[in-house]
């Protein structure tokens, strides 16, 4: 690097041909282009149809299929007409139980599995994949296989229970009013436990090793480290898992119950949830003619209930569960 070359470089640079016209900063068009397609498709194929449907809750249907304005009449019917109100509150209550069971069974199991997986045992990824498989199955498979397993006639569960000397414990769980809802919930837990497991696992992985080392030096063993260090740190993720569980419990639980227990939430409406009530009301069931107006009313109520839950979560819970920089 002698003076000569640098001089040369310098002149070369200055002798460069004039640049092409300089571009000016554009407006916000790119923002529009980025966001418009998603908003468009989403609005046309999701929001518009939903609004169209929910709008129906403000009308009352006539025999010939036409509709007349009914204001909040349908809501009044749903909440105060004994026929509707019983079904509505029963379904809502069942939903809450369903939610409760998922919260106390699915999420702790997910947490447990995630915690164990985060210890990086051998074959960890194999376990992870296998445990996630049920999540990938369609409810038709899930319904069939669990009905088969739990059916009194074919003896799968009795045989299995018998293998551990518990055959006497066997009950037709899916058929008893007292146990049907719990049983269906547990099947759903079985199917979906992979999702909280994955979410929590990922959260656990993001906890820095040094923090765990620090806790070990502080005298904590694995168990206490989990309770006193890891768990508090993943609380925000547990919060998200909870809210996803809450939403899913209203929207996704339907398929499984419909597939296993039918549209009436057998036995004796003990597994009837908002989803099944909504489905049979909206689309009809056997001799029951679909009533899109009452259906839409139920759907709107469901929307409000979810919204209330989410809002409560955001306002009361999320703010307290602070996310920690790690």
């Amino acid at each position, binding site marked *: 690097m002698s003076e000569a070359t640098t001089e040369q470089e310098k002149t070369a640079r200055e002798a460069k041909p004039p640049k092409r016209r300089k571009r000016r900063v554009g407006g916000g068009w790119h923002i529009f282009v980025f966001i418009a397609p998603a908003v468009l498709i989403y609005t046309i194929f999701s929001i518009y149809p939903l609004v169209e449907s929910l709008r129906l809750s403000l009308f009352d249907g006539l025999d010939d299929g036409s509709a007349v304005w009914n204001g909040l009449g349908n809501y009044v019917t749903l909440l105060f007409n004994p026929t509707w109100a019983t079904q509505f509150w029963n379904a809502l209550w069942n939903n809450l139980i369903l939610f409760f069971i998922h919260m106390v069974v699915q999420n702790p199991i997910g947490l447990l599995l995630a915690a164990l997986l985060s210890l990086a045992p051998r074959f960890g990824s194999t376990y992870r994949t296998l445990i996630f498989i049920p999540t990938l199955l369609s409810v038709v498979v899930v319904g069939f296989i669990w009905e088969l397993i739990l059916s009194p006639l074919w003896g799968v569960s009795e045989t299995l229970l018998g293998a551990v000397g518990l055959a006497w414990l066997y009950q037709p769980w899916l058929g008893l009013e007292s146990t049907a809802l719990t049983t269906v919930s547990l099947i759903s837990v079985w199917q979906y436990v992979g999702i909280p497991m994955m979410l929590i696992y990922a959260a656990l992985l993001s906890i*820095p090793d*040094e*923090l765990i*080392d*620090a*806790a*070990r*030096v*502080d*005298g*904590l*063993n694995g168990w*206490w480290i989990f309770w*006193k*260090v890891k768990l*508090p*740190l993943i*609380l925000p993720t547990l919060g998200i898992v909870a809210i996803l569980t809450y939403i899913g419990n209203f929207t996704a639980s339907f398929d499984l119950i419909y597939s296993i227990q039918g549209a009436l939430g057998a036995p004796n409406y003990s597994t009837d949830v908002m989803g099944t009530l909504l489905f049979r009301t909206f689309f009809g069931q056997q001799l029951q003619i679909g009533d899109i107006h009452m259906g839409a009313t139920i759907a709107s109520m469901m929307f409000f209930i979810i919204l209330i839950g989410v809002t409560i979560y955001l306002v009361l819970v999320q703010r307290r569960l602070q996310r*920690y*920089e*790690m």
Partner: protein
Amino acid sequence: MSDLVLKDVRKAYGEARVIHGIDLDIRDGEFVVFVGPSGCGKSTLLRMIAGLETVTGGDVIIGGEKVNDIVPADRGIAMVFQSYALYPHKDVYGNMAFALRHAGEDKAVIDERVKKAAEILGLEALLKRKPKELSGGQRQRVAIGRAIVRDPEIFLFDEPLSNLDAALRVQMRVEILRLHQRLKTTMIYVTHDQVEAMTLADRIVVLRDGRVEQVGTPLELYHHPCNRFVAGFIGSPKMNFLAIDPIDDGRRVRYRQSAPIDLHVKTRSGAVPTEIGIRPEHVRLVEPGKGAFDGTVFVVERLGGETFLHVDFGHEEPFVVKADGGVQLRSGDVVGLVFPAETLHLFDAEGVAFEQTERHALLG
């Protein structure tokens, strides 16, 4: 008493051997600093002492007892981590009290100890804050406080200051030094930072590739590095090296066609010096032609109080010379360089240093 003795300590991760048998004897109350290039095993060694990593071979002995199988919490050590590793969900008080609470210590005792540590570290006003509401220096102080309350016999620090900015680093460095003076506890400190190592250590342990290269006081290492690696590693800016031709059986040397330079070294049979080293602060600048060599200044770094000159004299690597803040040289100037013989370091072809006979006069 809490002497720490490492006896032929080894570590392998599966096939990968990381620590190759380290013997070390650390006296109670000593401040020992581990230095060495990245990946040389400093952290691993520290973690083995802490009990966070199992020992593959050899013994770790604390206070006369072999602790290889003792859990970290029972070794009487406390550790301060590079990334602070504060519990983000606990406030300062909670962080400091954590270990004691877990050990089921009495509330009053905990309170007293935390308060005292907070006072030592000037954290009294911050006890209710969460870590994220603290500045880097404050976090570092809490991390140290958390170690203090455990009243350990040995403090372990793994690059505790490297996440701080330069100004804070200086400040925290002094704080740690004062802490050591006050507590008189054994401290083992890992760092990359020259200045930290030099200023903090009673003794420095220089590691390379899982082996100890040299152990000694900072000035021993500065003045009597036992080999080229240590010589180059200790001191900043680093030592300048120059390949030379030994003449007279290695009692004198010369560089290219320069005049022979007299040396004062203990010769070793079978070894002749092939390289000299000289620290930037020992090179003297003279008029061109008056020194051993002439060179061209091509970079002048003025720090105000001192100036670093990068001088090119056709040698592979330019020499760095440390000069006064007020030195009047500019880039392009030609200068003469003098290498005072008593400041020279000599290395044989294997990089092993020769012991200089006149060096001791330099020791402070």
